[in-house]
């Protein structure tokens, strides 16, 4: 069994779910997302986020717009598309079911 592969698979889906749910709370730019993900230890290296964001954008779950910033160059602010919201909802349900299921399985004495 390729444990590394399992881990990667697990984390990948959850990470997408986390990113979508962070963006769903309001427009954010990449550094905000990083902050939250790092705080909650969802990611370790920042570089991981960008390919994912791009992929989510290419899948048309996200859209972004450039917003002028007071300190430095304009920033990309992300928001969820309608499709993104739908996917998030679905993921959220799945996640909740999963947590219950995992708890039920792992906590059984």
């Amino acid at each position, binding site marked *: 069994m390729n444990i590394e592969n399992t881990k990667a698979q697990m*984390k990948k889906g959850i990470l997408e779910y986390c990113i979508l749910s962070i963006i769903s709370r309001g427009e954010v730019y990449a550094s905000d997302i990083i902050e939250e993900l790092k705080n909650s230890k969802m990611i*370790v*290296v920042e570089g991981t986020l960008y390919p994912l964001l791009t992929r989510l954008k290419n899948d048309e779950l996200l859209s972004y717009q450039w917003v002028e910033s007071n300190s430095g160059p304009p920033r990309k602010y992300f928001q969820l598309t309608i499709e993104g919201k739908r996917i998030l909802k679905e993921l959220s349900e799945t996640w909740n079911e999963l947590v219950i299921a995992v708890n039920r399985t792992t906590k059984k004495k």
Partner: protein
Amino acid sequence: MNKVFNINLGGIVFTIDDVAFEKLNNYINKLKTHFANTQGAKDIIMDIEARMAELISGKLPNPSAIVNETIISEIIIVMGDVNELDDEDTSERKQTTEQKTSNEFHNTNKLRRDLNNKVLAGVCSGIANYFEIDPTLVRVIFLIVFFIFGSGGLLYIILWVVMKPMEESDQLSLNSQNKKHLFRDTDDKVLGGICSGIAIYIGLDAVWVRLFFALSFFGFGFGFIVYVVLWIVVPKALTPTQKLQMKGNPIDVSNIEREVKNTFNQAKQNAPKVANEVKSFAGNATHAIIEIAGAVINAFGKIFAVALLLLGIIGIILTAFLYFGISKGAFIKEFLNMCIDDGTVLNIIKSGILLIVSATLLSIIISAFRLLFNLKFKKRPIYSILSLISFTGFALLIYGGIKYGNSVKTKSTFTQNISVEKHDTLYLISTKKELDNENISIVTDDDGISFSMSDEGILQQTQKLKIRKSFSDSVFIEVKKSSHGYTKSDALSFAEKINYNILSQDSTITFDQGIFIPKNGKWKYPDVKMTLNIPVGTILKIDDGVKEMLNRNKFNENEYSGKIFIMTEKGLKCLDNSPDLNEKDDDDDININWSFFESDSTDTGIHVFTKKKKVIIENGNKTEVEEKRFGPFHLKIERHKKDEN
């Protein structure tokens, strides 16, 4: 000597030295090759460059400082090695080194207010961070100090002013700590999520904690106080970070995986099947009990919420009715009108009451809704607005109260004497004035004081009657009417206007049953005190209303229990129903031998039985009739009939 370049990275211009540039360039080139086959590679590189620029400028002491190799190395560690980037397959090894570096960077302890984890201003949690303890502990200590010594509040404000808020970098380091914290778990709550928070903290099922709290609510009462204190003190787990901290471990995938692994291992080592089944049965039973208990507690909470909601709604309807004078209860408004002269003061007090009542009712309703539907809107602004409203209400009430108190600060008494025709027997009776459509009536049982109000006005039954031995031979009533007002003369004019009548006709004195103030009059604590002076030997017959007036004198030695009295040298004696006199058989003590031991009051007269004599008192003429040595005597006092005279 080092060569420097000016580069444009993600839209920001940096001055960078030779070695650093080489390293950066190398990294970006690696990224480019790595993502060469990925869709949107250009975007990815651009985003990464922008982020790197941001990180670099965060590390530079000033914008024109030269970027050196150390900075670039740090940034590359943060961004991650190229090989790590496309899949999150970071190994344990990398994670630990990363954690070490981040701790080394940030683990500097400063006393700062923690704005991320605050109830008021983050002072307590700041202190907790400094000493590396749980903020809740600090908060509880503060609250205790606040209540017991009163100085906690001042200390808190001083610290609030003195302590700087935490910087972003500090926040990062604190948030990354994996310490377990006590939070209110609002995802799994009945009231405030205290119980489930504690449950997570100590690793029990929430139901047990709830059960404990519910028992202590009813059993000892202090559970309620503890709960409220914790509710105030313990912060909600709002952010995902806090939720993780609450559980004490990061929900990263390795944890979930570990748990799955553990289960597998457990399953392998599991005992034989039978034992297993027994176990699972026991487990199911416990689970069922827990579920039932949870449902009951939940239902209790809902019922409580519904009751709250009803209370609030009824309160609002009542208030509206009262305020606009729709219901009968408008008497409160009428009463205020009668009490307060000054229109401004009246309005101030009315609006004060309205503000307090509406703020209270609204907060009840809001709490009820929150309980019922688990609404998660931001409560802080709403509640602070509501408390501001009720605070304003209180301020208005206090102001109005002081103004009003001032307008009734002086008391004046108006005295007049009413002379009464002398008779051996006096009948004291009271009118039976009742208010039509009485709206409210307050009656105290023990001294018959009552206070009622209707659309006509106020009927106040507080007047007192004393009976004293007259030093002359005359009978008269001293009437003292008193009232309050701003000045003495003010109060006196109110006192004079008090409408209380005493009618003396023949041997009958009729007292008004109460002090009546009509609706358009003013109510300024009116009171009437009367003293009836009668010569020794006068017999009094009173009715229930008068008896009450007599008994309102709190400091009477004997309560007026009977209805027939005689004035003796030593004061008023009760002729009927007096336990004192029944026991005493002392002839010298009183003029006539009034050692009664039995009496009967009828329509035609009063029959009093004595041991030795029979006395008839008729139209003021006292006749001793007979003395018998056997059996009780029959004393007949004819009732005085007005129409016969």
